[in-house]
């Protein structure tokens, strides 16, 4: 084992798979120079045929990736900023995602979309977390919280025969951790208990997993035991694992960076009320992005995007009446 950054883990698994599989190419804006840090040095190894810089044409190149996938390639498409997904929404959700079903399984679309998330004083059109849109679009949706998970899940995404979208959470992709050198996969749809506990199940996504772990560490000193469930895959999320956890704790707080209305947290809450109601000792609580665009001024942004530890700690106290 060696310590490497989250982003490096993503980068090296793609690189190793590209060496093995000539049908993979990497496409996006400014990818030759690895502006977002993923295909660093790839251009020298794979050349401009497989590291394809595109014009600023998100809908066009996403559609091109679909066409190439239909003809047997396995494209990886990088969106420079997550909100650029909106420009290619039809190409992803209405085309790539539906073709296999609509064609009576004649067409496969094995594309991987890599989408770095952002926020932090860049506001409005640069700070959305569009993952819930993709979940509702029935797109296999991944949001790894650690470099270890990212490495294994990105490889599963590339090898999957359906379109898969991978969201790389804001603010944590520079973190270092122990990651094996060899290639490995983590199955899509399998969650992970990141910390065991008995009082409350915290469902957290992406960067908020780390915030939940931090809060759990703090609260342990006060005798409060949080279990942290990281779905890792948002669609489909691991229901049996969550059910088992809630059966034990009877209390749930869900944290997610997408909007409150119809966001991922709403879907998890709906599942719990449908199928785990009898285990619940308290109402399900959600900590989410507020239903306004992310404002610019930091003091305002803090009202809209949860910091994580603070809001969770307060919600835990409220739930346990402390």
């Amino acid at each position: 084992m060696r310590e490497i950054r989250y982003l490096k883990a993503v980068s090296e698994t793609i690189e190793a798979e590209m060496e093995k599989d000539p049908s993979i190419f990497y496409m996006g804006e400014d990818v030759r120079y690895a502006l977002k840090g993923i295909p660093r040095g790839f251009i020298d190894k794979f050349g401009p045929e497989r590291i394809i810089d595109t014009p600023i044409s998100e809908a066009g190149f996403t559609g091109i990736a679909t066409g190439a996938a239909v003809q047997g390639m396995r494209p990886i498409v990088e969106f420079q900023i997550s909100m650029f997904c909106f420009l290619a929404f039809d190409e992803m959700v209405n085309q790539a995602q539906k073709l296999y079903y609509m064609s009576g399984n004649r067409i496969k679309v094995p594309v991987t979309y890599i989408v770095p998330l952002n926020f932090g004083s860049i506001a409005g059109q640069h700070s959305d977390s569009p993952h819930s849109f993709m979940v509702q679009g029935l797109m296999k949706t991944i949001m790894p919280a650690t470099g270890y998970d990212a490495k294994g899940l990105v490889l599963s995404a590339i090898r999957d025969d359906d379109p898969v979208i991978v969201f790389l959470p804001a603010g944590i992709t520079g973190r270092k951790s122990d990651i094996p050198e060899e290639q490995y996969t983590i199955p899509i749809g399998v969650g992970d208990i990141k910390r065991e506990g008995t009082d409350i199940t915290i469902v957290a996504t992406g960067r908020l997993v780390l915030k939940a772990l931090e809060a759990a560490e703090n609260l342990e000193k006060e005798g409060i035991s949080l279990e942290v469930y990281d779905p890792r895959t948002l669609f489909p999320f691991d229901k049996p694992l969550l059910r088992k956890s809630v059966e034990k704790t009877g209390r749930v707080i869900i944290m997610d960076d997408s909007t409150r209305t119809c966001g991922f947290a709403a879907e998890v809450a709906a599942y719990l009320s449908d199928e785990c109601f009898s285990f619940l000792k308290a109402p399900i609580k959600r900590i989410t992005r507020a239903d306004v665009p992310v404002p610019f001024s930091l003091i305002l942004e803090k009202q809209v995007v949860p910091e994580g530890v603070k809001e969770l700690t307060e919600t835990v106290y409220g739930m346990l009446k402390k």
Partner: protein
Amino acid sequence: MIENFDKEKCLDIYRLLKMSRRFEQKTLELGGQGEILGSLHVGVGQEAVHVGIALALKDGDITFRTHRDSGQMVAEGIDPKYLFAELMGKINGYCMGLGGSMHLPGISGVLGVNAPMASGAALAFKLRNEKRVAVGQYGDGASNLGPLHESMNMAAIWKLPVVFICENNGYAVTTSIKYSSLLENLSDRGKAWGIPGETVDGMDVMAVYKAASRLIERARSGEGPAILECKTYRYEDHSKSTANLVLSYRSKDEIAEWMKKDAIAGWAGKLLDEKICTKADLDKIDELVEKTIEEAVEFARNSPLPEPEDAFKHMYATEIKGIPQKGW
């Protein structure tokens, strides 16, 4: 001989034109009787484009057709019995009853995506050094969509083996192309991407074939994409459902004028004028076409419906336990 086609091939072109038209007319008839559900967008009148393109393709070439091009599928050699079965929602339909008329493979029900899809297929061919060409078809309506222009530009800068073929039938539902573009010829847009653009008579199967063939071979030889505009006309209304609205966006005279240029009558006339064949030869083909269509319809009628549970069986190529979920 017409061009490089001998008598047999000339008659086969007539058969393809006829098959393409009769297939689509039959779908309308079955739609009217309630045997085919949903909407239908037929390209009756546009057969010269459909058959002209089909003739220009070589093995391994691929077309991304519009929602008005199901007749072209027949011209490309797909057995109409699987298409009728699909339109009737049967299990042995071309897409197991999951797609319907607007979502047959190689057809998109959303406009403008064929250009990116075809460019993507062409990118795959180029990366693998295959001498194959992709054709991306679109109508005058789709010609104003962003993704189409984006992908044409990328196809141009990457010199992809793709040909964009515009079926300009004059109307996007009710909106005339004369309203939605100032250009006389939509092929002029090739200049914007630095690629050749040509316009041909889309009611003349040989004109379409010759131009398409030349541009497809040009793309195959590595010279990059081109735009081919075929000026054509649809005789029927936009769709089965809009036909009932009786919207007066075009005159009966206009329709009658275009019908004088009919592709099938034109080709038949040419074969007779040049004494390639006799009227009896053509009648024989007409009979054969009717028989093929009737047998195909019977096949579809006798095909079983899907099992209700089939709605949930075909969602993902790599399956994951627990999905898809049912709604209740």
